[in-house]
C-alpha cells in the first residue's frame, strides 16, 4: 500500500483578497518584467510560443497570463513519486503532507561529537540511518562529501543514496548529461530506461537565484528532466531583505514569478511533467547578513508560500535548515516551530526536516533522531481529534457512575482508544527526577546517540534495496559519468582560454 500523507491544513495567513492581490502582482512581474534565462534552447522554445516575448539582448523572457494559465492546466496537481516498492510510493496532491531529508551540508557533527568535513561514508551511513525513520517519505542527500571531486559530485551522491534507500530519491544535476546518467543508474534497478520514464524512482531539483534569474544549468536540467518525465522541484532560494524585497509579501511575489517561469518551461517541453513549487528561502539576519532558516519570519514566509503555491494549483515544498549548531534547546524550538507551522499550513513536502543545522552547513547524526521525535509529535498535533458520540463519552461517563465513578484507566474503551490515538515517544523522557537520575541522568542528545548507534549496527545486517551486482553496475555508470563531466569542464575551460 502506498504512503498517504496526513491532510492537516488548518492555518491560513492569507485571505482571498490577499491571494488575489498576490496573483495579480505575480502576473504583472512575469508579463512586464519577466525572468532572465541564459540558455538559448529555452529562449528559442519560448519564442516559438504565443504569449512569450523574448528580449534577445538581455536574455529575458516575459510570460503572459494566458501562457502561464495554459501551463498550469497541464501541470498535474495529483501524481505519484515512486519508491523502490509500492509501500514507499508517495501519493502527491495539494492536501497531503510528507517529509524529506537533505541537503548538501559540507560538515557533519558525528556520533563521537566531532565537527568535521563530511566524507562519502557519512553520506552512506546517514542515508541508512534516515531510511529507518518511520516518518520520512522522501530521501535527499544530506551531505556533500569532501573526499569526492566537485565535478560530477551529484552522480556520486546519486549512486550512494539511491543504492541505500527504499524511498524516492530527491536528486540534483548540473547538466542534461548528468540527468541521462541518473536515468541509466535508476534503470539498473528498474530494468530499463523506459520503465524509469514510466515510473521514475527519483526526482530532480533546480535552484534559481533571486531576483528572477535562471542560470543556464537550471534551464538545461528542467528541459532534460521534462523530456524524461522526471518530476521537478522548481526551487527558488530567496534571501528575504537581500536578494528579494524585505517584506514577506514582496518576497512571495518574486518567488512565485521565478518558480512559475520554470514551471512554464517544463510544461512547454513536456506537458504534464509533475512540477513542485519549491523554496528554501530565508530572511537574512540584519546584524550579520547570514541566512536564517530558523527565524520566525522564515517560517511565516514558508507557511504563506504554501497557500500561494496551492492557489496556482501546484504542490509545495517548504521548510529549511535551522540555525542551531548543536542538538540543543535552540535546535528543538527552531525545528518544532518550523515543522509544525508548515504542517498546519499544508506544506506538502517538509524539506530538510532531518538533521540539518547551521544554515544548511552542518548535518548532525543525533539531530536526525531528535527530529524524527519532533516530527512524530508535530504530526500528532496536526492530526487533531474527532468529536462524535463515542469520543464525547457521555454514555461511558454515565455507565461508570458519573460523579460516583472512579477511573477510566482499566476500561475497555480506554484500551481500544489510546493505541490509535496517543503518540508514543521514543526519545522523550517523561520520568520524574529521581527515576531519570537513577537511569543515568541522560540528555535527549545521549538517548539519540545510543539509538543512532543501535540502528546503524542493525542496518548493516539488513539487505539493501539493490543487489551488490546492481550497486556495482550503478557505481560504474557513476564513475563513467564523472569522467565525462570532467571532460566537459576541461573543454569548457580550454574554450575560455
Amino acid at each position: 500500500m502506498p504512503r498517504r500523507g496526513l491532510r492537516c491544513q488548518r492555518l491560513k495567513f492569507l485571505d482571498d483578497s490577499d491571494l488575489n492581490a498576490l496573483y495579480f502582482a505575480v502576473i504583472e512581474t512575469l508579463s512586464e518584467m519577466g525572468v532572465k534565462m541564459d540558455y538559448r534552447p529555452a529562449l528559442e522554445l519560448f519564442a516559438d510560443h504565443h504569449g512569450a516575448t523574448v528580449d534577445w539582448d538581455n536574455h529575458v523572457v516575459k510570460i503572459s497570463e494566458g501562457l502561464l494559465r495554459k501551463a498550469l492546466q497541464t501541470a498535474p496537481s495529483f501524481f505519484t513519486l515512486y519508491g523502490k516498492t509500492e509501500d514507499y510510493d508517495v501519493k502527491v496532491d495539494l492536501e497531503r503532507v510528507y517529509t524529506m531529508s537533505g541537503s548538501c551540508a559540507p560538515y557533519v557533527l558525528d556520533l563521537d561529537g566531532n565537527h568535521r568535513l563530511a566524507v562519502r561514508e557519512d553520506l552512506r551511513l546517514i542515508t541508512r540511518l534516515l531510511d529507518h525513520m518511520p516518518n520520512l517519505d522522501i530521501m535527499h542527500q544530506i551531505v556533500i562529501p569532501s573526499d569526492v571531486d566537485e565535478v560530477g559530485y551529484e552522480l556520486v551522491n546519486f549512486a550512494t543514496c539511491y543504492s541505500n534507500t527504499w524511498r524516492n530519491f530527491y536528486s540534483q544535476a548540473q547538466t542534461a548529461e548528468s540527468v541521462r546518467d541518473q536515468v541509466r543508474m535508476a534503470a539498473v534497478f528498474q530494468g530499463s530506461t523506459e520503465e524509469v520514464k514510466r515510473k521514475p524512482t527519483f526526482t530532480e531539483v533546480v535552484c534559481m537565484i533571486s531576483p528572477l534569474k535562471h542560470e543556464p544549468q537550471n534551464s538545461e536540467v528542467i528541459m532534460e528532466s521534462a523530456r524524461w518525465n522526471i518530476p521537478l522541484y522548481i526551487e527558488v532560494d530567496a534571501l528575504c531583505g537581500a536578494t528579494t524585497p524585505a517584506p514577506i509579501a514582496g518576497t512571495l511575489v518574486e518567488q512565485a514569478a521565478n518558480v512559475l517561469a520554470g514551471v512554464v518551461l517544463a510544461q512547454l517541453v513536456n506537458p504534464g511533467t509533475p512540477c513542485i513549487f519549491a523554496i528554501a528561502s530565508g530572511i537574512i539576519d540584519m546584524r550579520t547578513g547570514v541566512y536564517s532558516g530558523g527565524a520566525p519570519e522564515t517560517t511565516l514566509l514558508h507557511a504563506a508560500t504554501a497557500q500561494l503555491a496551492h492557489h496556482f494549483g501546484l504542490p509545495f515544498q517548504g521548510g529549511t535548515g535551522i540555525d542551531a549548531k548543536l542538538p540543543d534547546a535552540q535546535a528543538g524550538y527552531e525545528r518544532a516551530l518550523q515543522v509544525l507551522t508548515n504542517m498546519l499550513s499544508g506544506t506538502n513536502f517538509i524539506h530538510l526536516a532531518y538533521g540539518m543545522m547551521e544554515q544548511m552547513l552542518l548535518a548532525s547524526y543525533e539531530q536526525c533522531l531528535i527530529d524524527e521525535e519532533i516530527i512524530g509529535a508535530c504530526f500528532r498535533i496536526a492530526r487533531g481529534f474527532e468529536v462524535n458520540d463515542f469520543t464525547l463519552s457521555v454514555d461511558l461517563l454515565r455507565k461508570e457512575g458519573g460523579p460516583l465513578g472512579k477511573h477510566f484507566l482499566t476500561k475497555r474503551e480506554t484500551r481500544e482508544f489510546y493505541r490509535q490515538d496517543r503518540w508514543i515517544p521514543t526519545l522523550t523522557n517523561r520520568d520524574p527526577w529521581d527515576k531519570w537520575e537513577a537511569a543515568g541522568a541522560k540528555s535527549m542528545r545521549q538517548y539519540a546517540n545510543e539509538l543512532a548507534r543501535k540502528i546503524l549496527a542493525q542496518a548493516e545486517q539488513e539487505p539493501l534495496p539493490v543487489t551488490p551486482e546492481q550497486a556495482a553496475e550503478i557505481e560504474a555508470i557513476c564513475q563513467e559519468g564523472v569522467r565525462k563531466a570532467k571532460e566537459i569542464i576541461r573543454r569548457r575551460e580550454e574554450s575560455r582560454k
Partner: protein
Amino acid sequence: MDSRKCEELYKAIIEGYAEDAEALARQLLDQGMPPLQIIDECMVPAIQEVGRLYEIGDYFLPELMMGAEAMQAALKIIQPALRGEGARREVLGTVVIGTVAGDLHDIGKSIVATMLSANGFDVYDLGVDVSASQFLDKVREVHATILGMSALLPTTMPYMQRVIESAKEAGLRDQLIIMVGGAPVTQAFAEKIGADGYADDAAGAVKVAKNLVAQKAGQQKA
C-alpha cells in the same frame, strides 16, 4: 568655506543618503575646499562613526551598507578632482575580489567589496564565476595587494585552492595577501588551503584586511 556643508556631508554618510552625499561633495568642491581635506575632515570620520555604530549594535547591515554606499558616491565625485590636482588619496591597498568559477552567488562578496571600498581600499570587483586566470590577470594589471575570493557552494570551495596554486605557479603568491570567505568557508578551511585571512562577515573582513596589510608592511620594513 562653508563648514556647515562639511557637517552635512558627514551626516549624509552616517545616515546613508548617497544622492545627498554626492551633491554635497560637489558643492564643497565648487566652494574650493581641497579634495583631500573633504575626504579627511568630512568623510573619513563619518564612515568611522558608521563602523562604530555597527560595532555597538545600534546599526545593522542595511545602515552599514547604506553608509558605505554614500561614502562611495561622494568618493566618485572627489576622485577626479584629486587626480586633477595630481594629489593621491592614500589607499590602504588594492583589492581584486570575486566569486570563484562555477559559483554565481553575488551578494556576500558584493557586501565585502563595498565595505572595503568605503574603508580606504581600492577595489576591483570581478563579479561571479571568476576563473583563476581572470583573477590573476587582474592582479597583475592593477598590482593588487589583496586577492579576495568568495564561494557559497560546498562544491565550489575547493576552487579557491586551485586559484592559490595558480598564483604560486605564476610567481604572484608571495606579493599577495589572499583572503577567503563565504557561508561554508571556515578559518580551518582557509588555513588548510593556505589562505592568509578569513572573516565570517563583512565588518570582520575589513578588520582582517587592515591587519594583514599592516603586518605585511611591518614585514617589508623589517
